[in-house]
């Protein structure tokens, strides 16, 4: 079964510092990987996705992620964070046919950016 593990539940970082949010996946088939962001009291917004091809994926708001098949990882990075990046970040993998290909999510990483 496809699953993801987000290795950090909380990541505090200062404004303008770089950040990496870690995600490992487990899958026996080809994977489609996603990062979503959730701001307080809102739904999830897609940041970026890996389907195939280039292992470096660029998304919105200056975020990027690198797909690493040998390490089964899909870490999210941003070179310089802003206060407005404070949010919950979810890594997800596309699931199996018996769940309608619903996404399987990690538990989320809370990014807190302080001045």
């Amino acid at each position: 079964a496809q699953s993801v593990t987000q290795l950090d539940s909380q990541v505090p970082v200062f404004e303008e510092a770089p950040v990496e949010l870690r995600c490992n996946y487990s899958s026996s088939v080809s994977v489609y990987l996603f990062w979503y962001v959730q701001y307080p009291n809102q739904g999830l917004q897609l940041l970026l996705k890996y389907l195939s091809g280039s292992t470096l994926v660029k998304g919105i708001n200056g975020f990027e992620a690198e797909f690493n098949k040998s390490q089964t990882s899909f870490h999210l990075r941003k070179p310089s964070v802003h206060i407005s990046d404070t949010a919950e970040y979810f890594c997800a993998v596309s699931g199996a046919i018996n769940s309608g290909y619903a996404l399987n999510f990690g538990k989320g990483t809370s990014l807190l950016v302080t001045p």
Partner: protein
Amino acid sequence: EADIYQTPRYLVIGTGKKITLECSQTMGHDKMYWYQQDPGMELHLIHYSYGVNSTEKGDLSSESTVSRIRTEHFPLTLESARPSHTSQYLCASSDPASHYNEQFFGPGTRLTVL
């Protein structure tokens, strides 16, 4: 831009009440989903639908029910709400032509049962 709507955004009700959480999308997507999200936890799939007249239960056991009479509408109903149902409920949809299943989410309904 994704157009998927959920109402109400917030709901506080007493135990035993019947409630329906509304979800509508204007993208013509066939696949729709309901997730339950508790604080600090991952999203759990509770229901999904492939299209009109199709409903399936998800990974997380839920006392809720869903219906899909129209493509754009996927309401979730709790016949008798209990405090254990307190949670955030997120609705999502995806285009079946997208085989990798990118999903678009509504803003969520935060339910509190007293």
